[in-house]
């Protein structure tokens, strides 16, 4: 994969708030149709990196390119904003606040289609039905209001909304973390199928290594705002090169796992 084909390219990303550096020298690329997972614990800077990709936060240093377009500056015009929306979309963690609580689902999708300019007024209802179907929600949900839906269903709506723009990249920021285990499995399967069908690339932010193994092709491990390890999922998770990655793996609950107390020096900071 050449750099030109990469659908997301980040180089030397830096984010500083006053005198606190939250992201330091983070670089990565995402190939079309592939999934990059960004993992780390709280304070690692992964959500900040996601925010820099979506343009909600401006980078202090470094560059971000999505579909070849530089995203270091905020969008200059309405047209630029919409164009960016067609390139990259966001699904975030909390299904309860991710949707306007008063807006019927059909209208949510319709609005997304309108903003992205992906369907005319005539074709919008049909396309809305298609999208709802693609995420496993029936047409009968089109009139429902988010309050009437479960967390998993709302997250499906958020995914359908992201898909409406037919983006090249979808950023999923802990998108399955707040879901019940059985629902999480359904949504992970859905995301895999959608990636196969639409060819969209995913940037998947998570703290859960089991989910990374399930859904990602490449993984970036962040600690304290820096990249600790970077490689294919099979390499990094099966044969980690860094001690921190190994610690993360050892701490992930799974069949046969037991919690272990950390070996600590007398005055080392522990969080």
């Amino acid at each position, binding site marked *: 994969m050449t750099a030109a084909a990469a659908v997301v390219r980040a180089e030397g990303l830096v984010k500083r708030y006053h005198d606190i550096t939250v992201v330091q020298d983070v670089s990565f690329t995402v190939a079309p149709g592939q999934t990059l997972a960004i993992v780390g614990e709280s304070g690692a800077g992964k959500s900040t990196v996601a925010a820099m990709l*979506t*343009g*909600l936060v401006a980078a202090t240093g470094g560059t971000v390119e999505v579909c070849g377009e530089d995203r270091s500056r905020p*969008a200059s015009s*309405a047209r630029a*904003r*919409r*164009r*960016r*929306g*067609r390139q*990259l*979309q*966001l*699904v*975030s*963690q*909390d299904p*309860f*606040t*991710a*949707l*306007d*609580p*008063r*807006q019927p689902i059909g209208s949510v999708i319709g*609005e*997304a289609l309108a*903003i*992205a300019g992906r369907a005319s007024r005539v074709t919008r209802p049909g396309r809305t039905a298609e999208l709802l179907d693609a995420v496993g929600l029936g047409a009968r949900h089109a009139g429902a209001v988010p*309050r*009437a839906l*479960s967390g998993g269903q709302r997250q499906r709506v*958020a995914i359908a*909304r992201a898909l409406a*723009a037919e983006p090249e990249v979808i950023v999923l920021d802990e998108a399955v973390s707040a879901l019940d285990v059985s629902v999480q499995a359904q949504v992970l399967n859905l995301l895999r199928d959608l990636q196969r069908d639409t060819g969209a690339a995913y940037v998947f932010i998570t703290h859960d290594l089991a989910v990374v193994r399930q859904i990602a092709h490449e993984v970036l491990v962040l600690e304290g705002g820096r990249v600790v390890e970077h490689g294919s999922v099979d390499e990094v998770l099966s044969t980690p090169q860094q001690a921190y990655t190994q610690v993360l793996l050892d701490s992930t609950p799974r069949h046969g796992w037991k919690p272990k107390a950390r070996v600590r020096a007398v005055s080392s900071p522990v969080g």
Partner: protein
Amino acid sequence: MTAAVEVAIRRRRRAVRLPALGASGWVALTAVALVVLAALFAPLLAPHDPDTGNLLAAYARPGAAHWLGTDATGRDIASRLIYGARTSLLGPAAIVALSLLIGVPLALVSAWRGGWVAFVITRMLDVLFAIPGLLIAILATAVFGAGLRAAVLALAVAYLPYTARIIVSAAERERRQEYVRALTVQGASALSISTRHVLRNIAPLIASQSTVAFAYALIDLASLSFLGLAVQPPEADWGVLASDRDAVLQGHSTQVVAASVLVIVTVLSLFVLGARLAGERPTVRGFLRRRGAR
């Protein structure tokens, strides 16, 4: 309670659409409805013409012909009170409408842009906060002459910071919601997000806030009319009707008492209704607190 339990309970509640008004809420709603009906259908309801008086029947006692008696020039008090509902409601409505018309866009801009824009707007509103509304009104009448228009404009300006402050904090809260961020990423413009989404979600708050503001505007305007600074006699406004000192001195207090009672009842009903619409329980302390804060 866990989120799942709350959702289960809320689903059962969906049948009930209105917020629980409670007994006091319904009483208040009825009172307000009656006043509004009186204002709308005054020509049909009033037994006599409010402006023509029969000097021979001046200061008549309450009786069959004149339910509340007559005033100094023989005009029927009851009819004047019924017609008075019109100006008594019109003025406050104009005040609330004006303060919303200016306040809402100002608040949305401030909540959205933040930074120095919000700073400047907040400071301007702080200045307005510092000056008591009645004082502004008195100044306005001194400059523009006494009359309803000057009083309405002055009070609208005085009420601006109260309206704006509540809307700003609500809008700022909505703005931080995840769905606003999602819409931004999609490429929706700030204007469409503010009007189609944020505004719609804070509309209930604005509605209840406006109801209470209406109540206070009613008192303030009636007070100004009482002082002779707003509605001028012979206009039949409750404030004006409550200021007829001569009648009281001559032992005919029906008009003044009736007008004052009407103002008080309407204001309290509006306050109770506004509190209920906001989902709160109306309390005496709440009422006094808001008065005191002004």
